[in-house]
C-alpha cells in the first residue's frame, strides 16, 4: 500500500461524503464512542522508515506493529518509554490516536510526550507534515502532539516519529502489604524523593513498585525502601507481572464494565468496593461497575472518568469520555472542522457531537 492509496481513499470519501472508520489492527475497537463509517483498513501501510539510535528517534508508517518497533529498538538497547499496551497486534497509528500509555507513564511521560512529528492526511485528502525528527522544534503549532488521543478524528496519522530512550540497566520490583489509602499516601511521599520509581500498581492490598535505572541507583533505593517493608520479587515474575498490567490481562481489569479515572495523585479515595486497581503513583484508578456519580466525583477532584470498557450501546448512551464544557466543545468542533470539514473521519468516536 502506498501513501497515494490512502489519500485517494480519503479524497473520494470526502467528495462523496462517506464516513470512514480508520482501523489498524482493531485492537482498540472497544475504546471510545461509536464505531461508524466504512472500515478503512490502514494496516497494510506498514514499515519502519528511519531509526537513528544516537538521535533517539524512530519513524514508521501507521500500520507498523508496536511489536516490530519494540523489537527493533531492543536490538539497540532502547525502548518506547511510555510502554504502550499492545492488546494483541496494536499498530503505531492506533497507539498515537488512542493515546494510551502503560505502567511507566508517571515516570517517563505519556504518548504525547514522545511524539516528535507526524505525517497527517486530513479530511480533505491533503498530506500535512508537522514537527520533525529533532528533539526540540518549536516552529509552528505542535499539531503532532495534539494528535495523541484524538482517536483519528483530525486525520489519518499516516506516519509518525517517536522519541525513544535507552532501556534501564537495572530493574527490581518490590511488593508492599498496603491497603489502597496507604498506597496512595506512600506513593505521593516517595514521589517527592529522588527515587528511581518507574511504575506502581496496587491490587488486592498489595502495592507493586518497580525501580529502574543505574544499578547503583536501584540498589540504593531498595535499601531506602527496605524499612517500609518492600519485599523483592523474582525478575521473571516481575516481568510477567508488568506485562499483565500493560496488556490488562491482569485480573484487576477483568470486569465487563470498567471505568478509568485519571485524578490528581493526591485525590482522596472514595471508599468504594468497586475499586479494582491503582496505577501511576495514585493518579490512575480503575473501577468496575462504577458507583453512582463517579464522573462528577472525579470532576470535583480535578480529574475525569472514562467509561473504558463496556457494551457499545452503553458507551454511546453515557458517552465514553467526560463531557466538555460548552466553550471547550465549541472549540473542539471548530478544530475538527478545520481538519475535517465534512466530518467524515471517525465520526462519534471521541464525542457524539462531531
Amino acid at each position, binding site marked *: 500500500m502506498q501513501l497515494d492509496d490512502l489519500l485517494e481513499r480519503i479524497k473520494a470519501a470526502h467528495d462523496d461524503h462517506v464516513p470512514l472508520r480508520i482501523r489498524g489492527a482493531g485492537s482498540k475497537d472497544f475504546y471510545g464512542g461509536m464505531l461508524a463509517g466504512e472500515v478503512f483498513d490502514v494496516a497494510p501501510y506498514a514499515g519502519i522508515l528511519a531509526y537513528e*539510535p*544516537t*538521535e*533517539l528517534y524512530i519513524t514508521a508508517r501507521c500500520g507498523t506493529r508496536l511489536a516490530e518497533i519494540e523489537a527493533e529498538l531492543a536490538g539497540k538497547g*532502547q525502548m518506547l518509554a511510555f510502554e504502550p499496551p499492545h492488546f494483541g497486534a496494536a499498530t503505531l497509528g492506533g497507539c498515537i490516536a488512542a*493515546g494510551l500509555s502503560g505502567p511507566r507513564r*508517571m515516570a517517563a511521560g505519556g504518548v504525547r*510526550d514522545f511524539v516528535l512529528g507526524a505525517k497527517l492526511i486530513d479530511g480533505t485528502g491533503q*498530506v*500535512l507534515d508537522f514537527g*520533525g525528527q*529533532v*528533539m*526540540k*522544534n*518549536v*516552529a*509552528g*503549532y*505542535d*499539531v503532532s502532539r*495534539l494528535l*495523541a488521543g*484524538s482517536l483519528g478524528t*483530525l486525520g489519518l496519522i499516516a506516519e509518525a516519529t517517536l522519541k525513544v530512550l*535507552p532501556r534501564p*540497566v537495572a530493574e527490581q520490583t518490590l511488593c508492599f502489604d498496603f491497603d489502597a489509602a496507604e498506597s496512595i499516601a506512600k506513593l*505521593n*511521599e516517595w*514521589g*517527592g524523593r*529522588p*527515587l*528511581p520509581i518507574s511504575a506502581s500498581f496496587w491490587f488486592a492490598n498489595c502495592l507493586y513498585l518497580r525501580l529502574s*535505572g543505574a544499578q*547503583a*541507583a536501584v540498589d*540504593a533505593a531498595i535499601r531506602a525502601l527496605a524499612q517500609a517493608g518492600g519485599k523483592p520479587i523474582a525478575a521473571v515474575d516481575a516481568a510477567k507481572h508488568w506485562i499483565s498490567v500493560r496488556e490488562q490481562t491482569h485480573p484487576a481489569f477483568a470486569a465487563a464494565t470498567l471505568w478509568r479515572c*485519571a*485524578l*490528581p*495523585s*493526591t485525590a482522596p479515595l472514595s471508599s468504594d468496593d468497586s475499586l479494582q486497581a491503582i496505577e*501511576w503513583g495514585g*493518579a490512575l484508578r480503575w473501577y468496575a461497575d462504577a458507583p453512582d456519580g463517579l464522573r462528577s466525583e472525579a470532576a470535583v477532584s*480535578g*480529574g*475525569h472518568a472514562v467509561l473504558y470498557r463496556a457494551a457499545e450501546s452503553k458507551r454511546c448512551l453515557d458517552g465514553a*469520555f*467526560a*463531557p466538555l*464544557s460548552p*466553550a*471547550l466543545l465549541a472549540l*473542539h468542533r*471548530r478544530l475538527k*472542522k*478545520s481538519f475535517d470539514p465534512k466530518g467524515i473521519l471517525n465520526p462519534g468516536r*471521541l*464525542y457524539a457531537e462531531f
Partner: protein
Amino acid sequence: MTLSDSVFTTDRAALATRLKMILPAHCLLTEDEDLRPYECDGLTAYRELPMAVCLPESEVQVIDVLRTCHQMGVPVVARGAGTGLSGGAMPHAQGVVLSMARFNKILQVDRSARTAVVQPGVRNLAVSEAAAPFGLYYAPDPSSQIACTLGGNVAENSGGVHCLKYGLTVHNVLRVRVVSIEGEVFEIGSAAPDAPGYDLLALIIGSEGMLGVVTEVTVKLVPKPELAQVVMASFDEVARAGDAVAAIIAAGIIPAGLEMMDKPATAAVEPYVKAGYDLDAAAILLCESDGTPEEVAEEISRVTAVLTAAGARDIRVSQSEAERLRFWAGRKAAFPAVGRITPDYYCMDGTIPRKRLAEMLAAIAAMESKYQLRCANVFHAGDGNLHPLIMYDAAKPGEWARAEAFGAEILELSVALGGSITGEHGVGIEKINQMCVQYSAPALDAFRRIKAAFDDKGLLNPGKAIPSLHRCAEYGCMHVHRGDLKFPELERF
C-alpha cells in the same frame, strides 16, 4: 521589518477612552514616553510603539481588555518579562500590549502532589525557589530563568540545559487557564495525568501568544537530585566532539545536560569568567550527571570512558559544587562574554540532527568568510539545538543586513539538514520567513485554520509565527506541493 501581514486601523482616542472605562489609571499607559520601554523584547533589532499598554491586575480586567479589543478589532500582544529573543512580544503599531507583569503570585505549592500553581508573570527561577524547601524544583531552566516568566515560557515552549533529560515546558506544564480573544475562560489540561478531549495543552504551549492569554499555570515539580557533577572534555576537532556526543547517547546515557562550545566561544568567555577552559581545543563538551551519589559516580565513570574512547584530549571532572558552577559559568555567560568583544551580536536558534553537527559548523565557518562576520558557537549538543552568535556592528552600514542574511542562511541549512528553524526561542517576527522554508503550503494553511478556530478575527499577536500566504509568496520560497497551488487564480511574485 514591519507587520505588514495584517492591516488594522485603530482609532487611538476611541481605544484610550474605552480602556479607561475598564482599567484604573495605574494599569494603563498611553503616552509615547511611557510606551517606549515596551517597544521591543529581547530582539532589539525590531521595534514598534504600541497605541497603549495595559497592565491588568485581575483576570476580570484581562477579560475586559480582550473583549474590548475584540469588539473594536484591535490587535493584542501579550507580554511577560520581554526576554524573548525572536520578537514574539514586539508590539503592533495599531494595537495594545497586554503586560502580564502584575500577575506575579505563586498561588500554591503542593508538596505532596508535587505541583505549583502560579500566575503567568512569575519568574521561572522563583518557582524553583518556592519549591526548594520541599526538596523539589521546576526542571525547565532557560538561560534567562532569573528574569523570564512562566507565561512567556508557555508561549515559547522554552527549554534550557536540562531539557535533554527533563523535557521542555510542554512536558512540565499540567494545566493552564486561558482567556480567549472573545473573553471566554478555558481550563486546559488538569492536575490529573490527562484530560478529556483533544490535547489542547500541546497546542497552546509554544503557540507564541496567538491562541489565547494565559492567566494561570499549574506546573509539575520534580525531586531535586542529591548530587550533580560535570565532566569537561576538550577535543582537537569539532567533528570528534560531535561524534563523542553521539557515542554518549549510543551508550545508553541521557545526561542531565550536554553542552558544547567552539574555540571562538571559549576564547570569548575565558578572559571574562576564568572557568579554566582549554583554549587550544577546537571544542569543549560539558556533560552533567545528576542523581544519587552512587548513580552519579557510576554515570561519570561510564561517560569518562566513552569520552576517552572518542578521543578527548583532556578530561576533567568537577570535584566540588564550586568547581561545577565554575565549569558552567563560561557556558552560562557566553552571551554577555561575546557582548564584550563585539558591539552587537545576533543570536540564532536552530536545531539539527546531532550527527550533522560537524557539517553545520563547517558551513558556518564558510559563511563567516562569505558575510565577512565572525561567529561563535555555543549549543545544547545533546539535543542538537545550536545558538550561533553572529558578531556585527550596528553602527557600520550594511553589517546588520549581512548578519540577518547570515542568520537566515543558518536557519535554512538547519531545515535542509533535517532540523528546525527554532529549538527554543520561537519564530516570532524573526524567523517568520523561514517558516515558509520549513513547512509546506498545506501545513501552513492548517496552522492558519487552527489560529482561526481560536481567534477568528486574527487579533492575537498578528504577524508573528505563522506567515501569511502572501508573505511566503513574497519571500520566494513558497512550497508548492505537486503543483497543487491554493487559489491558483491569484497573481503572485
